[in-house]
Each structure stands twice: as C-alpha cells, then as structure tokens.
C-alpha cells in the first residue's frame, strides 16, 4: 500500500521535473556569460543589459503589451455582455450560439490564422497591428464568455428580480446587483483574455507585418535565424510574467482545488 | 452470518479521539442499531467493523476471528452507504453482480443469484436500468441487494434511509426488517434517528463522545436509561429539577426513590384542570401551549421552573385556554430513576 503511494508521488515528482527543468535551465542560461550556453556556468547579467538596449525587442514587447491590454478591454466587455444575455434570456437558437463558441477554441490556430490572413487581405485590411488585434479579440472572446457564464451559473437570479421589484431599471440592476456579484468571474475572464493575447504566437505570426511584429513572433524569427542569448533573457521574462499572471488567476478562480 | 464482537476499541484521528475503549457484542442474526448524535463515533465504529479504519487499540472479531488488521476487501462484509454509492457506469444487474464478479463466480451462477437478490428486494425486471434512471427508493433497494448477494458474514448499514422522504422511509423500514428476517443476517445499523432505531432493532447501543453509554434491547434502554443523556436522547423525557424546591407547592406530592435523577415520559402523564386524587405523584403547573398533531396532541406545561411535555390522544387532553393552572399526575411505577445525572 505505502509502496504504491510512494510510486505515485515519485511519478508526480518526475512529471514536475520534466515540466520545469527546461524552463529553469533556460532561466539559468540567461544569466550565463557565454553566448553559446557554454559550461561551466559563469554568472552575468549582460544579456539583460543588452535586452534593455535592443530597440527591436523593446518595441515588440511594448506592442505585445498594448495589444494584450486592448484585447483584454474589448474581449472582456463584449464577452461579459454576451454572457449576461445568454444567462438572462431564453430564445430560439441559444444552444447554437453557445455551440458557436467552440470552433475558435477547438480549431487549430494554424487554420484560423491562415483563414484570417486570406480574409483580411480579401477585404483590403491586410496584415498589421489592427489585423492582429481583431484576431486576438476573436480568440479571447469565447474564453471570456465561458468563464463569465460559469460564474453566472452560481448567481441567484431572484436577486435581479428583487432589485426590479424595488423599482430599479435594467441598467441599475446590472450595475448595482449583477456585475458586483460576478466580478470575480469577470476578472478571471479578463486575465484569461490577457494571457491568450500575450502568449499568442500562431495567429500573430500570420497577421503581423514584418518589422511590426509582436514579441513571440520576433522570438520565433530570432530562433530560426540562430540562437541569441538576449532571446533567452526575454523568454525568461515572459515566462515569469505569464506564470505570475496565472497565479493571480488561480487566486480568483479555484480550479477544482476545493474539497 | 456470524456474531461480531468489539473489545476495547480506541480510534484516534490526530488529537481527536473518535472512539474511546468501546466494547460491544453483536449476536448472531441480530439487528443492532448504533445510535447517537453526530460526532458521537457511531459511523467511526461502523467503519472500524467494516475494515475501512484500523483501530489503534482493541480487538474486532467476526465469527470469532480477530480481523482488526484485515482490510475491508478481505472481510466478507456487506455494506450499504448513506448515498447508496451505486456505480453510475454499471447497470443495476452489474452493480448487484459486482461482488460476485470479483469472487470469480461463474456467469450463470452470477445471473441466477443477481436475479434472486433483485426478486428479494422486489426489483425484478429492472436489471438493465442505470442507477440514474431509478427513484430514490429503488436505488436503496439496489444497494441492499448488492450488499447481501455475496452472502456476507455481516451487513453494515450507514444511515441508509436518511436520504429518503418520510413516507418512503417508513415503508423502507418495514421492508428492511422483512428482508433482514428472511435472510437472517447479523445486521449493524447506524442512525441518528431514535424512532428508526426503536422500530427496527432488537438491540441498540447508544454512543456519546466516542464512548458507549448503554446497550440493550430497545424497551429496556427506553424504560431504564442509564443517564439523563440517554433518557432525553431516546424519546422525550421530563426531568424533575435537582434539587427539588423546598417546600413543594401547595397540593403537590411526590413519592420518589433515592436516585441521582428522576424522569417521567410525556405519555405517562395525566393532565387535568384540577388536582387528581388518585395520582401517586402530583404537581401543579401552568399550561403554556397546546399543539395539535392529528390523532395525538402535545401540551407544553411549565412545572417547577422546567418545561415539560405531555403527550396523549387529542380527545383525552382537556381543551383549556393558555396560561391556565393545570395539574400533572403520574403513577409511582412511571417515575424513571436514573443512576447518573
């Protein structure tokens, strides 16, 4: 009995090593003085200095953050509105609308991304930051709707009815009763949206203009040209940021961790 | 079928002592109810007997064999759970046949015994259904069939009726009793419902804070509770105040033995607007309220600073306005002397 338990824990430990070891190695190498990851390890913050002076990376990072913030704002507001409508109202085609949320999540981004590329060219929008933003919002929307909907499922609709009985109009009911009650869901949805956009590579790759790309696209191009230690440093920064963000999400949203 | 005995069993969870030196014998073929409030240790005791928990001290015997270190799957017990714990992915017949399959019984034999068990619980013909397609009462019967089909040495029931509504629960109590008699299996039953325990069991054990307070036939425990907790937990008990006021009110008379405490059952009391000449014990009180409950009625009466209950058939209780002076009388034999307060 204890032998099996021990084996289980060891398996879990090995999986965690598998998941984290390469990330830790990368982080360590970003502090290694040798540009070719040569051992023995010699500490240096040189690549972080270089990073601060690399305008291309800085611009791409700024663009990535701005696009992620814009995506978060747009996707969260549109998604919350849609989730409210799906929760409150009963109408024909509601099941279909809910089903339509899955293609953007389930279809590989390679297909969605190339399809967007073709369509945006066909309508004359072409590639560039606006196209990237439109694509990111579309990818983030279903996540926001699903997450806010999950929170609404635990919301007691009689609270809205009580507020209406007290004379509050629809807008007041939404603003003073519903939105505060589902705020944690909205915050979680917003963080999901940010993560989807900030980590997005595939769709950005097809939609951004050369020289006008987001950070992941820049990293991919740099890796394909050959390894550069600055990329190592910026990758480390990205992964630390995303993981910190995820920890914040976890605080708002307990993933099956209860009981 | 076998007798079960528990001797000096102590079970601790960290700092918490769930069972403290509990000893109890369960006779062969008997129907035993373990009764107690929540947290009293009754479910822990059942799980120790089942083999889910290994006690830190003490001995558990099934059919004379010490089993306290034998895991549950090797103990040859049958168990029914509070929420039935039917396997949702298996049909009714597969649920009932699960224990037989584990024991490598032949398929033909399995079919025959599952059929018999379903007949016994009156669910013949529902073998192909899934648990979620059954009503609460039907699920309960499936769980019972599943627990007894392997001919276990002992049947353990963990509050099996608590998830049913009241009318269904009474039906199932009768049914459970019938099946237990028919099969003749030693049965240990955990409940917090004293009425259920009194109805079903031929012996009951009362637990409190991990200790066995009293065990015996229901009538004996009811009529001679060992302490005031048992007196009040098993049925209603009106306790005489301790110490009694001196002097007693005018017209009152009491004829008591020398015990630590005295109790009177609500149904032993006679309520009257005036003093009752024939009563060996008589106390004045004030009628607080009268509650009608169909054939029976309950009067709440303030007596010597205590709140007492009187229960009788509605037509035997006089109709009096609230706050009137009333007299409560009872026979000497109806005073229950209690050894421990």
């Amino acid at each position, binding site marked *: 009995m204890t032998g099996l338990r021990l084996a*289980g824990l060891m398996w879990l430990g090995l999986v965690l090593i598998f998941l984290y070891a390469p990330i830790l190695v990368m982080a360590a190498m970003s502090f290694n003085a040798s540009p070719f990851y040569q051992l023995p390890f010699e500490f240096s913050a040189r690549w972080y200095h270089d990073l601060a002076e690399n305008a291309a990376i800085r611009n791409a990072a700024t663009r990535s953050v701005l696009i992620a913030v814009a995506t978060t704002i747009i996707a969260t507001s549109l998604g919350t509105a*849609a989730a409210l409508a799906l929760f409150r109202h009963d109408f024909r085609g509601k099941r279909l609308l809910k089903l339509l949320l899955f293609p953007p999540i389930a279809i590989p981004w390679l297909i969605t991304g190339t399809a967007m590329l073709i369509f945006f060219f066909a309508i004359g929008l072409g590639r560039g930051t606006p196209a990237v933003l439109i694509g990111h919002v579309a990818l983030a929307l279903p996540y926001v709707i699903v997450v806010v909907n999950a929170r609404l499922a635990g919301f007691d609709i009689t609270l809205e009815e009580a507020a209406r009985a007290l004379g509050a109009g629809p807008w007041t009911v939404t603003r003073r009763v519903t939105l505060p009650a589902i705020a944690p869901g909205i915050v979680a949805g917003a963080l999901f949206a940010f993560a989807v956009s900030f980590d997005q590579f595939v769709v950005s790759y097809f939609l951004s203009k050369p020289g006008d790309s987001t950070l992941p696209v820049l990293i991919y191009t740099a890796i394909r040209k050959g*390894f550069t230690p600055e990329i190592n440093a910026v990758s480390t920064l990205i992964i630390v940021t995303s993981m910190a963000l995820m920890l914040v999400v976890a605080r708002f949203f307990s*993933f099956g961790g209860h009981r | 079928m076998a007798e079960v005995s528990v001797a000096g069993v102590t079970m601790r969870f960290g700092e918490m002592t769930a069972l403290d030196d509990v000893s109890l014998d369960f006779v062969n073929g008997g129907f035993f109810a373990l009764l107690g409030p929540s947290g009293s240790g009754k479910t822990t005791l059942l799980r120790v007997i089942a083999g889910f928990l290994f006690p830190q001290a003490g001995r558990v015997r099934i059919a004379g064999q010490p089993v306290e270190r034998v895991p549950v*799957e090797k103990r040859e017990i049958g168990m029914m759970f509070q929420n039935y714990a039917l396997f949702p992915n298996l049909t009714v017949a597969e649920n009932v046949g699960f224990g037989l399959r584990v024991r490598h019984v032949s398929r033909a034999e399995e079919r025959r015994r599952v059929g018999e068990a379903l007949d016994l619980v009156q669910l013949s013909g529902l073998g192909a259904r899934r648990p979620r397609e059954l009503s609460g009462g039907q699920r309960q019967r499936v769980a019972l069939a599943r627990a007894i089909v392997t001919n276990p040495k002992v049947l353990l029931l963990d509050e099996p009726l608590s998830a049913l509504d009241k009318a269904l629960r009474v039906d199932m109590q009768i049914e459970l009793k019938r099946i237990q008699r028919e099969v003749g299996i030693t049965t240990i039953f955990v409940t917090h419902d004293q009425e259920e325990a009194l109805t079903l069991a031929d012996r009951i054990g009362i637990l409190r804070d991990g200790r066995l307070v009293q065990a015996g036939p229901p009538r004996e425990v009811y009529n001679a509770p060992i302490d005031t907790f048992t007196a009040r937990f098993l049925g209603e008990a009106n306790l005489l105040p301790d110490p009694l006021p001196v002097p007693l009110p005018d017209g009152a008379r009491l004829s008591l033995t020398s015990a630590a405490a005295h109790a009177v059952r609500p149904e032993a009391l006679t309520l009257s607007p005036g003093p009752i000449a024939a009563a060996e014990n008589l106390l004045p009180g004030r009628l607080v309220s009268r509650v009608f409950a169909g054939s029976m009625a309950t009067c709440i009466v303030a007596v010597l600073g205590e709140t007492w209950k009187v229960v009788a058939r509605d037509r035997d209780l006089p109709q009096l306005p609230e706050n009137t002076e009333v007299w409560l009388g009872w026979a000497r034999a109806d005073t229950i002397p209690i050894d421990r307060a």
Partner: protein
Amino acid sequence: MAQAPIPGDGRRAAGLLAPAYLWLTLAVFLPLSAMLFFSFLTAAPFGTESPRATLENYRDFFETPTYALLLWKSIRLGLWVTLLCVLIGFPCALVLARQIRGRAREALFLLVILPFWSNSLVRVFSWAIVLRGNGVLDRTLDALLPFDVRLGLMFTPAAVVIGLVHSYLPYVILTSYLALQAIEDDIFDAARALGAGRITILRRLILPLSLPGLIAGAVLVFVPVVGSFMEPRILGGRFGTYFGTVIEDQFVAVFNWPLGAALSFILLAVVLAILGLSSPVLRRGLT
C-alpha cells in the same frame, strides 16, 4: 431558465449579443468561409492574375503522394504525442485526485497546470537549449553515468515529440483530474466492501468513469499537434517537415495561398472527423 417575457426583452438580448457574435463572425466564421472559397480558385483574387474556379488544389493533394505522406506523418506524430501524454498524464492526475488531500493537492495541481498558460513557443525554445548537442542534458548525463553519452537528440523527431508532450501534457492532466475528482469517494468504499482489489477498481470503475475526461484531454492534445508547425521547425531541424509546416510555407514562403487554403481545409476535415468520432463519449460525460 424560463422567464416571463418582458417588453423589449428580445431587443435587449440582441443588443448584448450582437457585438460579440458580429466580431466572431468577422474574424472567424467569415474567414473560414473565405478560405473554403479560395481553395477552389486558381490564384488569390488580389493578384495580377484573374482567378478561375478549379479543383486543382485538391487534385494536387491527392496526386502528390508527398502531401498525403506528410499528413500521415503528422497524424502519426499526433497519435504518438497523445499516447505519451495519456500514459504520463493519467497516472499523474490519478495521484493528484485520489492520493493527495487538502492544501498540498491544491498547490501541486496549480504547479502542474501553471506551464499550461505560459508561452508555448518559449517552452519549446527552452527544450532547444536543453537538448543541444553537448548541451545541458548531455553534460548532466555524462556526469551521472560512467560511460560516454552522446544523445544527439536535437533536430530529431524525438526532440519534436518531447517538445510537444511538454507543451500539451497539462491538458490531459487537467481534464483527467477534473473527471477523477468528480467521482464520489463512497463508490470506492462500496467496491472495497464488495471485495474488489485495486486492479478491479481501476479497470471497472476509475477508467470507465473518467473516460470522458481522458478522451477530452486526448482530443485537446491530438487536434493542435496534427496542425503544429512551430515545434517541428524549432526542434526538428531537417526532420521537421510536417503537414503543418507545408501549410505554413504556402502562406509565408511559397505564397501559393489557394493550395495552402486547400491543405488547411483537408486538415480541418481530419480534425472535424476526430471531433465527430469522439463526441459520443464526450457527450456521455456531460450527461
């Protein structure tokens, strides 16, 4: 939730829904339709050539064995990665869901799915650093083992598989964990009381009851892996040509968009077939 109709109710619902669904239409559904349309043209309609309707692009796929071979190679890659993710991830979810309790479980679970939300490109890149010839892994194994180690994993199909398993493993763990956690503990007590051992409980209860979660996880791995192109490019080197990379090439290198669209649609058909095949099991898990 059925509610009494309120005046203007339908209009209000439409007003709340329209922006989100218009956006999805504009950015996902219309593009997918446009791509289907394009896949039947001889050329992109915004070039100098005037396009004609044709089946040529699909004929290309069926007449050029290379494409079919690459699609098969991608499907095989998907099957391998999915199998490994299931074999590694399911026991892991089982340990998390049934063996560890309380705060430790919450923390470990979070630790397992944390990489899931970090940039997958960056994680693939980190494997490139680990697997490089004479890199960290080679050095570590050299130091630990008495004999000379030359793994030379970088730029091999194995490197691609490792990187993809690393990227998608958390999906299987997440979905299996959620399914396993939903099983009521009583059921295992009941099975033990009936005399069932560990193997029986695993085979007759745990596996069937968590199958929908396991299948969901497998689909979530298989679908994107069949369409992967970034991982093979970074870790596969000259072995890194798959169906996904061919599609990528049509759009960013060869600029044969109609062919790329046709290949994308063939990939989509494969994906939809997989989703269709698995949907009965998935639906059973939802009821």
